[in-house]
Every structure is written in structure tokens, then in C-alpha cells.
């Protein structure tokens, strides 16, 4: 009779976490940051139809990196959860915190119960009536939730992107400047300096001033104009002299 190998629980969890981290780091980054009129989402995404950023509810949006089929599944579940809660009670009763909790529970359960953890990292952001009421939650593959104050970078080489974002971040900045900051940060990916163009960017905002549904995609001509504006505002993403450390 052969003896089964003993693997300690610590080792199992560590292996799973390493597996998930590797999967997430393979993709490209996405950043979420606050600007003077709401919350900006920018993802490095070649596809125009397979979105990494989407609307969940009136004032809540979703951004994700990692495996498309897994986070798409989470997005659909979130839309269903938000819509049924809002229909049973009231539209004001659907909150970002509630959705973040539901996602955390779901990802946590998948991480502990199944052999293969989900290789996703997501952000649930809610724009408030005032900047102080804005909420940004980052939920990782093991179900941990982090309440972020100002900005989040995830996927790809998230650490590099985060430090680039930290350098220039200003929560009071107008949209064009915030976009320049985000593009500057995303161009630091993988230690190489890449030129980012409108075609490879997915951009959306939660605009505090909008009525009803605050979520709006910025694409096509509008995105080109905004990028031109952000370059003109002096913070050219490709210009800054500093190199990777």
C-alpha cells in the first residue's frame, strides 16, 4: 500500500496564492483613481468589446484584471445582485460596500474550497454626493478586502504602476490631468516604457455631476480629445525623464 504524500495546509494555501498571483501578473494593469469630478478608471485593454471596466449600478462601477471568464462571471453576478436588491428595496439602498462584501465572500469561498483559485483582482468603486463619501474597495483573489482612499493599481506589474501613480496623484486634479497621471503610471508596466494610445486604452468615469446613472465610458472621439487635452496640460506621459529603478 502506497502512502499518500502529506502536504501541510500552509503549503496548500501558499501554492494556491502563488498560482493566483502569477496568473494575475500575466495580464496588463488597470488603475482606478479619484479626480475632482468623481472616479476615473483606466485599463490597458486592446479589445473594444471585452471590457475590464463596467457599470454595476447607478453610482457603482467595477474594474477587474486577470482571467476574463472568471471576472465576467463576477460582474454578471454583481449586476444581478444590485438590480434585485434595488428592485426589492430602493435604488439608494444599493451600496458599494454591500457589493464588495458579496464579492469578498464569494472569492473567499472559492479560494478555500476549490483546487483552483480564481485568478482575478477586482475593484468596486462608488461615487458619493461629496468627495468624502467616495468609496474604493479592492478585493483580491483570496477574498480579502482593502478600503482604498485615493487610488488603486492592479494586475501586471502593479507595484511599479502604484509607485508611478503615487508620485503624481492629486485627488483635486481635473479629468484630463488625472488621465495623464493614469497613462503615465500604466506606461511603466513591465519595466519598459510603452507609448499608450487611445486604441489600447479603456477609459470610463463615475461622474458625480451626472443624473441617474453616473457611469460613462469615454471612447472614440471624446477619448482622443481628452488625451490631446491631457498632453497639452503639460504632463506628457512619455516626457518625464525618470527611468525605472
Amino acid at each position: 500500500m502506497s502512502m499518500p504524500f502529506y502536504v501541510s495546509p500552509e503549503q496548500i494555501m501558499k501554492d494556491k496564492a502563488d498560482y493566483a498571483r502569477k496568473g494575475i501578473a500575466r495580464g496588463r494593469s488597470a488603475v482606478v483613481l479619484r479626480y475632482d469630478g468623481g472616479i476615473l478608471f483606466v485599463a490597458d485593454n486592446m479589445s473594444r468589446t471585452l471590457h475590464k471596466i463596467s457599470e454595476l449600478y447607478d453610482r457603482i462601477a467595477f474594474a477587474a484584471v486577470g482571467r476574463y471568464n472568471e471576472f465576467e462571471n463576477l460582474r454578471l453576478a454583481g449586476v444581478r445582485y444590485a438590480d434585485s436588491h434595488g428592485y426589492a428595496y430602493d435604488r439608494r439602498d444599493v451600496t458599494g460596500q454591500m457589493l464588495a462584501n458579496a464579492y469578498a465572500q464569494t472569492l473567499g469561498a472559492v479560494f478555500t474550497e476549490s483546487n483552483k483559485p480564481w485568478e482575478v483582482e477586482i475593484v468596486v468603486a462608488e461615487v458619493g454626493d461629496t468627495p468624502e463619501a467616495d468609496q474604493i474597495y479592492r478585493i483580491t483573489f483570496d477574498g480579502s478586502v482593502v478600503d482604498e482612499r485615493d487610488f488603486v493599481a492592479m494586475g501586471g506589474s502593479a507595484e511599479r504602476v502604484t509607485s508611478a501613480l503615487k508620485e503624481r496623484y492629486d485627488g483635486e486634479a481635473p479629468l484630463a490631468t488625472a488621465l495623464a497621471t493614469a497613462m503615465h503610471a500604466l506606461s511603466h508596466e513591465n519595466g519598459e516604457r510603452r507609448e499608450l494610445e487611445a486604441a489600447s486604452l479603456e477609459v470610463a468615469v463615475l461622474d458625480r455631476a451626472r443624473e441617474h446613472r453616473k457611469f460613462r465610458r469615454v471612447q472614440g472621439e471624446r477619448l482622443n480629445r481628452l488625451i490631446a487635452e491631457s498632453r497639452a496640460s503639460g504632463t506628457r506621459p512619455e516626457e518625464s525623464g525618470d527611468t525605472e529603478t
Partner: protein
Amino acid sequence: MSEAFGIGGRLPAAFMNPGTSSFIDFLAQVNPDLLPGRRNLPQGDSSHLTPDATTIVALTFPGGVLLAGDRRATSGNVIANRDMDKLFRADEFSAVAIAGSAGIGIELARLFQVELEHYEKREGRPLSLEGKANRLASMIRGNLGMALQGFVVVPLLVGYDEPRGEGRIFSYDPVGGRYEEHRYHSIGSGSVYARGSLKKLYRDDLSEEDAALVALQALYDAADDDSATGGPDVHRRIYPLVDVITDDGHRRLPADEVAELADTVVTGRSQRPDGPTAPLS
């Protein structure tokens, strides 16, 4: 919503499977009690339990469509509500108004709003106007059991058809029959009078403001001859509600703008109680 969470607090399988893009179909799986038209009612007519919403008018103008409704709800001879809102913004480019059993109608309109938005969020693009009209038809059909017991609801759907660049109007019968109306239409208890008025006042080249004026005249005529329709209440300052949909999207006319137009109508009627006359030939 305890049913939203399964074991261990995770979202249950019904939320995670790819399934349908219809919110109504989804709700039928996880929480059917929330859907209207699924209750077993005792035999007999119970329609006195909810008031009736009355007159709605709609008309198109170049580049858009306008929807207006009076504010009254009645229970038999009693005025149940003086300032009811019977118009619902369905999404950016459509609106729906209800006549008939108010309680059921409001629920249907709310569900229709969520249905459209749910589809748009899931699929990443909105339904076509025809698609919205068909979806509403099947919702009305689902209410047939209730309609047979007296809870009859008929909606009027208006929307801006982006590919065609024009406003369109759809009316319904209680079994879910869908009819596209051209130029103008009216539903509800005062609709007979409103339609006569619309017929005489409608022009093909109305501006948005003139279209609002025509709608207010038609509602005045309906209130004039139908006791269940409320006219402009100048003392309480309760005026009809007017929604306009153009390529800029849905917009409700501000109350003071409508008040000004309604005052024009009321002042005109003090000179000529039957309203403006149409040329004889």
C-alpha cells in the same frame, strides 16, 4: 434579502451562471414573489382595491416625441390622488406611461425600467426600441390573469429611435397586443376627448414647445368632459407632467415651464371655454 446569500455568504449559483439577460426571468428563478402577476387571487372583481390612473397623451414632433399625463387617480367617484405621477422614464431614450389599475401599473413600470437597464448592463448595449416595445408587450401579457380579475393595465410607450432619427409611439391592449401609433395617441378614461382634440390641433411641423401646448390643450379637453381626468389645478399649482425625448435623451419639462404653458391654456379658455378652433376647410 436572505436568499441572495448561499452557504458561507457567497453569491449562490443562480447569480453566477451565465443564464439569461432578462431581469424578469432571473427574478422568476430566485425571488418569484417580487414579480407582479404571479399571485393567486380569489375569484371575482377586486379592482376597487386600487385606484385608476387616467388620461395620457403622446405626440411626435420633428426630432422627438412628447408624453404628457394628468395627475388624477380615482377610486369610483372619489379622487384618490391629486398629484400622481404616471409617467416613468424607462431609460435614456424611452418613457412609459400607465392607465388603468394604478398599483399594478406602477409596479410594471418599475420592473420595466430595471429590465431595460439590466439588459443594457449585461449586454453592453441597449435594446432596440422595437425590442423594448416587444418586451413590454410580453410583460402585459403576463398580467393577463390579473386583467381578467379587473386589474387592467395598459401602458403607452414612447421612445426616440436613434437609427431612424425620429420619435415613435406604441400602444397596447390588455392581452399584450402591440400597436405602433403614428403622429399622436391617447389612452385612459379621457382618451376619447383628448384624441379628438389632438386630431384637430396636431401639425406635422410642431416645435417642442408647441407640442407641449397641444398636449396640455388635449388634457384640458379630456378633463373638461371626463370626471376622472384632472385639469390644471391653478390654486394648488398642480399641473400635468410633460416628458420630452429627443436625440439628447429623456428630459422632464421643469414645473415652472409647464405652469407657464398651462396658464396660457387656462387664460385662453377663460375667453373661449371650448378652446382653439380649427379652420373649417
